[in-house]
């Protein structure tokens, strides 16, 4: 089943802001086995010029996935989650995310297209503090394998 093209341009806002905590950052850094002290130790982070411990560069995917999650569970989008794989991911940072940030996420469906037998959907998420300071923009390309409609029989 092809993805519903009517969803192009649709916008999803996080129902509540995400509070970035030192404990969650440490848990995420442990999960990627990255021992860098700026993720754990405030003095190390301050010595590197940061106001508090910073989050690993891919940490904002937690908020991006919440945004994408709102879109992809909508049955009218007709996206087969079981056949979905991650195609591309991009982050553009204004600054590193850090403990104490309270983050809003606004996700837009920016592209839906077919490529061969696959369906491709691109989601862009803008992550900013509740005060309005931009932190990072994420772009997430998802591929639904064998999602395209079969070519018309001749």
């Amino acid at each position, binding site marked *: 089943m092809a993805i519903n093209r009517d969803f192009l341009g649709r916008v999803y806002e996080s129902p509540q802001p995400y509070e970035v905590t030192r404990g969650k950052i440490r*848990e*995420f850094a*442990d*999960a*990627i*086995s*990255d021992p*860098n002290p*700026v*993720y754990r130790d405030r003095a190390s982070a301050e*010595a*590197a*010029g*940061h106001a508090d411990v*910073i989050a*690993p*560069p*891919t940490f904002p*995917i*937690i908020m991006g*996935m*919440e945004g994408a999650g709102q879109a992809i569970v909508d049955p009218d989008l007709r996206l087969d989650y*079981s*056949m979905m*794989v*991650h*195609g*591309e*991911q*991009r*982050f*553009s*940072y204004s*600054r*590193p995310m850090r403990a104490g940030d309270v983050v809003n996420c606004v996700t837009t469906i920016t592209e839906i297209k077919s490529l061969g037998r696959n369906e491709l959907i691109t989601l862009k998420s803008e992550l900013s503090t509740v005060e309005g300071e931009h932190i990072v923009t994420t*772009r997430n390309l998802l591929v639904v*394998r064998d999602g395209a409609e079969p070519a018309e029989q001749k």
Partner: protein
Amino acid sequence: MTANVRYADVEVGTELPEQTYPVRRLDLVRYAGASGDFNDIHWNERIAKAVGLPNVIAHGMFTMAEAGRLVTDWVGDPGALVEYGVRFSAPVVVPDDDKGAELVVTGVVTEKRDDNRVVVAITARSAGAKVLARSTAVVRLA
């Protein structure tokens, strides 16, 4: 931001030290919990095979996180990262044994930009397959 690498010391063609990162089933379970991505194909062999995969595969975002360490360990301060983008070109297949899979990551400086920024092209391989392609990081050096 205090990068440990100086812009003046880097040329186009400068190679980052190659790194090898282990990817075991336990790593994927931990990553699922920390990230909130509980897609079955990252921990359930039965379901992974049922949807046509050779075995459990790593989260793309776990692979991206490990490959990013090549750059953030090189510059010292992860806050020096300006952009980071990857294309997932093949899955990292993770067998159910103590060793798991290995991710071999290499990087080379391909461009020097203004404002002390450089572009690093990143390649990651696992079991001989290129798992990240056309992947780049832009970092601001000291």
